[in-house]
């Protein structure tokens, strides 16, 4: 289906131009700036919903294609398009950014226009990452994103923000530059940066392994996988609430998206050869990081570690497929695991975002993230306690919430590969419940711990609105995840069929 409207360009450039305008207006008119930013983010969300209405679920082809020459001397093009894997993530981005901008309404007091502008520009770049079909365009957005995030953590962050943001920047930058070398190597072989060309490029197993490792460095840092996860807890703890939400809900997903768009289809043989390595790292993340989360005393840190653990599930779902295929000789199990991984990414976007917002709500009132500063919050903030309960349950993977769907599918798939993989992965259901609910119990239940808690006011209508919307989404996709599966199924099927074909020949 050809659309005359350049819908993806609109999605990318509307927020960026809006952000520039906000920067131009500056802090002189705070209310106008906030309102304008919110309207822009709603507009972008509406465009993405319109795109959803036009999205064709029956095909694995890329849709809404746009193609323009950008740097003709090197065959670099402004080439956009989305399939069923990228598009849900774009919807997640537009949805989350809208809520994040609303969440910062009264919280951010200094340099509000720069704050709003940073988030709008970041939104455009994140959509650009998901929509790029040209490797250099992808890298362009991928790296450019670091600039607003660096500033968001550094300007509006907590006490150790400088350390955290420089660590975040250098860590992700170091990972990404190796991806750049891999892309340049692929270009020297194929003469093209078009991802679809690169997907078809034959490569020897040796070359594939090196490229796989280069991609791995970029994506494993971003998602992040054990043992390159150490930037994440620091960045999350120091970032302002809105920054943590974007980081957890969307930026981590880029690592996962990178595995699906680059590692698996460009280096399928290396992915198959190294799947044991990937599965091992994923399981370490799931189990070991789960235990690490258990002993955290800082709520944000706890959720950060829980994110790493959940991302372990995502990578497990992506790479366990080879073993499933080898055992069952059918691709259905592998597709289930892959879809479980993607579903986990999306649902984690909602749940972790919501949990960070909940911590933000408490932090705004008490200015502490320590679990020990709280206790008995349910007595003073009943509405809040009820909503957070739902998100905590979802984080633990309770059936009926979106957190359950992804985890269940990944475990179901893994079981066909190896009992022990499924067993270890399933430990997360216990661990997740343990660390989330234990935190919840210590913060929310019990006697009122101190005067601060006694003086707490329940969430206002703005906060209620944000959390209720998230709650609805978490329940909706927990009970009826079909819209997401319908969207991604042809693309995932196609991806796995592609991955099964050896490129070494």
């Amino acid at each position: 289906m050809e659309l005359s409207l350049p819908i993806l360009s609109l999605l990318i450039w509307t927020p960026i131009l809006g952000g520039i305008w906000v920067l131009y207006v500056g802090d002189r008119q705070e209310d106008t700036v906030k309102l304008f930013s919110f309207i822009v983010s709603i507009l972008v969300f509406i465009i993405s919903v319109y795109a959803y209405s036009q999205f064709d679920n029956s095909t694995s082809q890329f849709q809404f294609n746009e193609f323009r020459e950008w740097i003709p001397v090197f065959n670099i093009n402004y080439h956009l398009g989305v399939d069923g894997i990228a598009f849900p993530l774009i919807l997640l981005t537009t949805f989350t950014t809208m809520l994040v901008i609303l969440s910062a309404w009264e919280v951010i007091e200094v340099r509000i226009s720069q704050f709003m502008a940073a988030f709008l520009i970041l939104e455009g770049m994140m959509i650009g990452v998901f929509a790029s079909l040209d490797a250099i365009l992808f890298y362009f957005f991928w790296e450019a994103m670091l600039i607003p995030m660096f500033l968001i953590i550094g300007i509006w962050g907590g006490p150790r923000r400088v350390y955290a943001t420089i660590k975040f920047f250098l860590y992700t930058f170091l990972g990404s530059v190796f991806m750049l070398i891999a892309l340049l190597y692929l270009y020297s072989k194929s003469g093209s940066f078009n991802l679809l060309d690169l997907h078809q490029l034959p490569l020897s197993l040796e070359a594939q392994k090196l490229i796989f490792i280069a991609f791995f460095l970029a994506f494993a840092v971003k998602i992040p996988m054990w043992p390159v996860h150490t930037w994440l807890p620091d960045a999350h703890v120091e970032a302002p609430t809105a920054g943590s939400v974007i980081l957890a809900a969307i930026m981590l997903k880029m690592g996962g998206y990178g595995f699906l768009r680059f590692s698996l289809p460009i280096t399928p043989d290396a992915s198959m050869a190294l799947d044991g390595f990937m599965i091992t790292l994923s399981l370490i993340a799931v189990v070991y990081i789960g235990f690490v989360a258990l002993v955290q005393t800082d709520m944000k840190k706890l959720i950060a570690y829980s994110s790493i653990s959940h991302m372990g599930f995502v990578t497990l779902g992506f790479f366990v497929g080879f073993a499933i295929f080898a055992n069952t000789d059918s691709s259905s199990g592998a597709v289930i695991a892959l879809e479980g991984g993607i579903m986990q990414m999306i649902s984690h976007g909602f749940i972790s975002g919501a949990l960070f917002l909940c911590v933000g709500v408490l932090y705004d009132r008490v200015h502490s993230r320590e679990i020990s500063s709280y206790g008995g919050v349910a007595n003073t903030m009943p509405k809040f306690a009820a909503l957070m309960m739902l998100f905590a349950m979802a984080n633990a993977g309770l059936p009926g919430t979106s957190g359950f769907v992804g985890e269940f599918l990944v475990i179901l798939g893994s079981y066909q590969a190896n009992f022990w993989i499924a067993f270890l992965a399933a430990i997360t259901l216990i661990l997740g419940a343990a660390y989330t609910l234990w935190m919840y119990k210590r913060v929310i239940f019990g006697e009122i711990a101190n005067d601060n808690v006694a003086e707490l006011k329940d969430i206002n209508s703005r906060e209620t609105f944000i959390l209720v919307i998230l709650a609805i989404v978490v329940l909706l996709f927990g009970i009826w995840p079909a819209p997401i599966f319908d969207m991604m199924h042809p693309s995932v099927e196609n991806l796995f069929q592609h991955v099964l074909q050896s490129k070494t020949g």
Partner: protein
Amino acid sequence: MLPQIQLVIPELVLLCLASIALVLDTYSTSKNKVLTFRFVQISLLIVIALIFVVSPDTQEYAFNNHFISDPMSVVLKLVICIISLVVFFYSYEYLKEHENVKGEYFVLGLFAVLGMMIMSSAASLLTIYLGLELLSLSLYSMIAMHKDSLTASEAAMKYFVLGALASGMLLYGISMLYGVTGVLDLQGISSFANAGVDADMNIMLVFGLVFIVVGIAFKLGAVPFHMWVPDIYEGSPTAVTLFISTAPKIAAFAMTIRLLSDGLQDLLSDWQGMLIILSLLSMAVGNIIAISQTNIKRMLAYSTIAHVGFFLLGIISGTASGYAGSMFYIIVYAIMSMGSFGMIIFLGKKGYEADQLDDFKGLAKRSPWYAFIMLILMFSMAGIPPLIGFWAKWFVIKEVVAMGYVWLAAVAVVFSVIGAFYYLRIIKLMYFDEPDEMLAIKASRELRLVLSVNGMVILILGFIPGALMALCLSALS
């Protein structure tokens, strides 16, 4: 065949204009030497126009193959003149603010530009050397012009002694080449080397090559011949540092290409190895030592050394597109360096050089727009998209990968990550720290405008780098 004189019209006119400027300056009585400055700016504009008008599109030789006009020389001359135009503007603002305007600065500057133009068009060993010396001698005296300043005098002395040493090395290498080949023009040397030489002769050639590479490395400031760079950058008045770090780098690129590619392309396998060592050492030493600097001019000096290491990557690949990558890199570097020193000039005031890192503290509060310009400059130097500095690094790394030196590319990118740290620190100072005092920044409207345009060029070129890339590629094809 064009009349030979036509090819050198821009140089001749510039020579005449520079001489007139020298005389005119004695008649310029105003404290600020407005007349000399305007005349020099107009001279450069005339030369730019002349280059457009008289330069042939093809490759033409003149004066018994001593002088060449080819697409590369035309592009380089244009860039040198345009950059010098902006640099003189920044310098004038600086000298005016510090009440130290001397007409000789601009006259010597014009002679330096002439030297650089001759280097760009040199087709023989002799012309290269003449152009280089004209440039160097002008620079020595420009640094020494602040005769009351101890650091400036020291810098001038150091630069003179080390520069003379480097010239001596280069000259020694040139004499070796001449001894072996019996010709001075690069075309002749190239065909001599191409015809195949016996082992003894080859040793002589390579022996000469070593000294030539040393001379080039000195002039570029590549490790281990970099000792002069930090001291000169720090000691010189900012106006001169600004000049040294921009246009002469482009001329040094021209010299490198003329000698190594036009003359000694057949010795590629010999000089490639030497340049790899120079490049790796420069990236390592430059990026690591820059981290510990507290003086921003000194930090930028080490950053220059690191950038030279990157710049050499394109030359190492030994292909026309690799050279184009280096050319792109050095032009981009000149624009970024110009802006960075422009910022230092912008923040400085009478009797006070804003050359400490702490001078940038809290700039985002004092002046959000100019903090943003500096942010652009620093991220561009670090090589982060969407800024042009990213494409410069991208281009040379792409060439190195295409030639199969993936390991070299991997080392280079690791150093670029290390290098990102000290650029980030400046952004940290500007955006995350509080200013010591909320002083208003006082700078002329023209300076504000030029600095803003400088920053915007870096941002906008980052989105549309294709044209400049194509220009560099066509200049070297």
